[in-house]
């Protein structure tokens, strides 16, 4: 479904990603792991068209994303839950969700998708008329996920979901993501390695802008090097 090959990305004159290659098949849960500043979020930015590719190609369902603007990538069925949630603080929960359905693919189904989001996160229904900025961190994360789902994406990118959230809340939100079912493919970036391995089938490890390891999440979980480097065990 998503195929990243030989991708180099720069921020200004500084190269951030070197020769990244990874693949996600339909229905899969894939995690990208790595420490702070390894380039995980830049990879998300490259897929969504926020950062341009210097070399290489990203293909989504056979179509190249190189040179597309973020608003065009969204139309193809890729939605991002951004790092730091970035809900529209001065818009109500309802309006935030409506903005998620802005792409043409989502707009005709607006009512149905909103009902689905409320089913997934009942708290959002209670807060429907509240401004996004007044929500708690966990609720904002739910809203950011809900907003992304409103465009009926085939590929959901989730960037640092657990950042700044209480473990209990994180668990609740990951459980909800599990409930999405096979029709939504998920590629997640996560600093919390244990959590990410638990909730994914396969994982890639990114270090200083390069993919250094990949494998089945269950195998990586048992790997001594990884346990020592990331899990402190």
């Amino acid at each position, binding site marked *: 479904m998503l195929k990243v090959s030989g991708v180099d990305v720069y921020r200004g004159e500084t190269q951030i990603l070197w020769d990244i290659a990874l693949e996600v098949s339909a229905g899969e849960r894939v995690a990208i792991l790595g420490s702070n500043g390894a380039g995980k979020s830049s990879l998300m930015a490259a897929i969504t068209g926020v950062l341009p590719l210097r070399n290489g190609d990203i293909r989504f369902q056979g179509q190249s994303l190189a040179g597309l603007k973020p608003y065009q990538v969204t139309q193809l069925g890729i939605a991002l839950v951004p790092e730091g949630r970035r809900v*529209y603080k001065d818009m109500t929960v309802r309006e935030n969700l409506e903005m998620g359905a802005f792409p043409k693919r989502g707009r005709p189904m607006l009512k149905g998708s909103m009902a689905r989001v409320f089913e997934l996160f009942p708290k959002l229904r209670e807060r429907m008329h509240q401004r996004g900025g007044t929500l708690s961190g966990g609720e904002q994360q739910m809203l950011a996920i809900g907003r992304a789902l409103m*465009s009926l994406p085939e590929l959901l990118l989730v960037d640092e979901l657990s950042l700044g959230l209480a473990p209990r809340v994180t668990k609740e939100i990951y459980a909800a993501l599990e409930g999405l079912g096979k029709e939504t493919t998920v590629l997640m970036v996560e600093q919390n390695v244990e959590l990410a391995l638990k909730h994914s089938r396969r994982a890639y490890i990114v270090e200083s802008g390069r993919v250094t390891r990949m494998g089945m999440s269950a195998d990586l979980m048992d790997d001594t090097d990884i346990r020592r480097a990331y899990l402190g065990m």
Partner: protein
Amino acid sequence: MLALSITNGLVIGIIYALTALGVSLVVGIMNVINFAHGEFYILAGYFSYLFAHTMGLDPVVAMVLSIAAVFLIGIVVEYTLIRPTYGDDLYSLILTFILSIVMQSTFLLVFGPFPNKPPNWVKGATNVFGLFLYGNQRLAALIAGAAVIALFFAMLKLTWFGRMIRATSQDREMAELNGINTRRLNMLSFGMGCALAAAAGVILSPVFPVTPSAGVPVALTAFVCVVLGGMGSMWGCVAGGLVLGLVENLGAAFVSTGYKHVFMYLILILVLLIRPSGLFGRSET
């Protein structure tokens, strides 16, 4: 005297608010400060004069046509002058400043230095609440201005275009990720900002005729309104406009007309001393 000053203040205040909304819209979406904002106001006044006076169209038709024309000119200006400057706000600042001078000189060449006045829409005067006689044209301007502001807010709240504007001014990159073509939105909002100035221009020009350089104080007041109300807050613009209009007129009536413009800045300084982010602005956190 008090009631009259308040009414005068409201009329002017609504027009200030209208002009300030245009500035605020363009700053919020594009981060561009349009120094030629006042000239678009004047341009609309001249258009309205041309269409209604020279071509003999109905004043209301002339107004609508003028606003539409300024909207289109705004779009052309964004496309040709502003678009190449994205990424460096200083360039657009200088460019719109030059544009302002060019437009003023053009007005002077084409229309001459004398005031031009589009025809009134209504004649006569009304006795307001039995207190004082007030020109119907000014009352009509008050109502028309308030109506345009109400329409603008309804558009922001109820339409997809309004949601696009609000989302983009809050988080431009996120809005783009939500499928908004922000480049095109820039163009439309610049046009709309100019159209708001134009609306103010056609509404007020029958009361205060237009001259080539009359746009300068208009733009200046609009900038003060935006800062007073709080950067990025549309309601702040309206509040700022009304406060300025009222303070100016009450000050002129009870202190001295000579200090009319001093009051504006006095209020600005006082408000910024107490609330540095303006009346409705949120402090940066």
